[in-house]
């Protein structure tokens, strides 16, 4: 029987990798999830706790996929605490995917926003010149730096880390680095996923220079399939129209970078 991608499939966590004290990667076998497009996400059921949207992380092994989760509220903490051998549910894949350009590419990721960037790196061509910016608050929150370097070993590339407190890599906000890079270099594509303010600034920086830019938005999600409306940003539904939007489109959106909705659906400022 064909799998109904809107019905939860149960998978067993086979490996748990500590990325930082608050970020873990959970690996599982799933042919469909292992082959998704860069930027796609799944709805992840933590039985008895909650269900969360999660970008689908790559795994080194074929036929496997992963989630990289930051422990935050009760839901993500529940996922963070899943042990090897325990089961979770997944449905999806959902959402559109990055439009992968050729040439000079700039990838900007903050925290678990790096997850779709790692899969995007598996889609670049060997001729592409790729710069990856990793933003973090401080040294012990940095992860995926060496993974990014490994994935790019056959490419002309740079992986630059910046920390807000300067405890590792460059000091300062990653968006300052973005501003600097796009003003000094030509890029064929800029891709960003992370906190909304970071995405907003990156999109502004690229838009003002007419550089192709895409951001992967995050909103409260209940259904993931365009039914509940909880993920709306202006007239767009993040789960269905996105999660990935072009910078040009986002420049028309009245809510991007300014408002998001809480669980009751009330607009709140960022």
């Amino acid at each position, binding site marked *: 029987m064909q799998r109904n991608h809107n019905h939860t499939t149960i998978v067993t966590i086979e490996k748990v990798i500590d990325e930082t004290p608050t970020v873990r990667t959970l690996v599982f076998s799933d042919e469909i999830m292992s082959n998704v497009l860069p930027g796609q996400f799944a709805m992840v059921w933590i039985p008895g706790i909650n269900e969360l949207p999660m970008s689908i992380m790559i795994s080194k092994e074929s036929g496997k996929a992963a989630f990289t989760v930051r422990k935050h509220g009760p839901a993500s903490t529940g996922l963070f605490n899943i042990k090897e051998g325990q089961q979770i549910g997944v449905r999806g894949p959902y959402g559109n995917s990055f439009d992968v350009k050729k040439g000079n590419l700039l990838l900007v990721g903050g925290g678990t926003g790096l997850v779709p960037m790692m899969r995007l790196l598996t889609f670049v061509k060997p001729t592409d010149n790729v710069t990856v910016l990793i933003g973090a608050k401080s040294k012990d929150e940095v992860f995926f730096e060496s993974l990014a370097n490994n994935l790019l070993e056959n490419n002309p590339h740079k992986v630059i880390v910046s920390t807000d407190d300067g405890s590792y890599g460059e000091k300062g906000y990653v968006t300052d680095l973005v501003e600097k890079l796009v003003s000094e270099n030509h890029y064929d594509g800029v891709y960003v996923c992370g906190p909304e303010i970071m995405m907003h600034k990156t999109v502004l920086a690229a838009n003002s220079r007419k550089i192709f830019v895409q951001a992967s938005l995050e909103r409260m999600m209940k259904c993931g399939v365009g039914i509940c409306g909880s993920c709306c940003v202006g007239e767009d539904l993040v789960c269905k129209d996105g999660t990935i939007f072009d910078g040009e489109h986002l420049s028309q959106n*009245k809510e991007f970078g300014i408002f998001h909705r809480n669980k009751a659906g009330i607009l709140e400022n960022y």
Partner: protein
Amino acid sequence: MEPSITTSLGQIQLERPVMLASGILGISLDVFNRIHRSGAGAVVTKSLSTEPWDGYPNPTIFSVGGGGWMNAVGLSNPGAPNFAKMIKPNHDVPIIVSLVGSIPKDFELMIEQFENCKVTAYELNLSCPHVAKVGLEVGDDPELVKEIVTTAKNSTNVPIIAKVGLGTTHYLKTVGTAIESGIDAITAINTVRAMAIDVETQRPILSNKFGGLSGTPIKPIALRCVYEISSKYDIPIIGCGGISTWEDAVEFFLAGASAIQLGSAVGDNWINVFDDINKGILKYMQKKNYSTIKEMVGLAKKS
């Protein structure tokens, strides 16, 4: 002459007979605009309460296959006051405001909030099958239904619709009581109380355990209800439940509905579904030589 797909439910006039059902994509004016543009004759808001509600934790929605969906969102909503503020700028979209509450006063208070908004009608949700003290628990209590409808009617001149569903008392009694109390139209039906269990983890999938079944599976049940209501009462009916094609829509007209709502079909076919259905209805009317929707309403009862 090109047939017209405009329709009316008592005083309510609609440009197109297909509406977005309550709870689907129903919390943002911008989205309402988009759905109206894509073909819906009106949009029904998420059911609103006097205060904002967070709803249940996830999982709250999933597919059971074959066009069937289960949900227990738990009526999460921003509350009537916030919502009224949001839709105040609206002039273009026919908005039907759905309301839930436990006592008559709740409805009076909420309707007040919308005094300066363009509201096409209010829809009283007497039929949500998975939230305590509101929805079906109200709809199953004829005395309460009477008080609520009476209070709502006294609070406004805007038409009031009652939305019914399959509860623990006979829904036709609820319909009868609502009509006696002055209701202007009936929407039938809401989701049907249901459940799904994951056999691997051996737990109910929805965090609330029980939820509401919607979509294709409930279509034959909803159609039966519309036929039963239209056979027993003389009241404008909005058919709802499992409609995803123009044939479905026409079935509901033939059973006695003057307009229809849909929700789950959006999950399978996205919002093109509104325009697709409008076009299908139009073609059918051309073929059968009808110039108005009214001509086919209730025709199946003649046979």
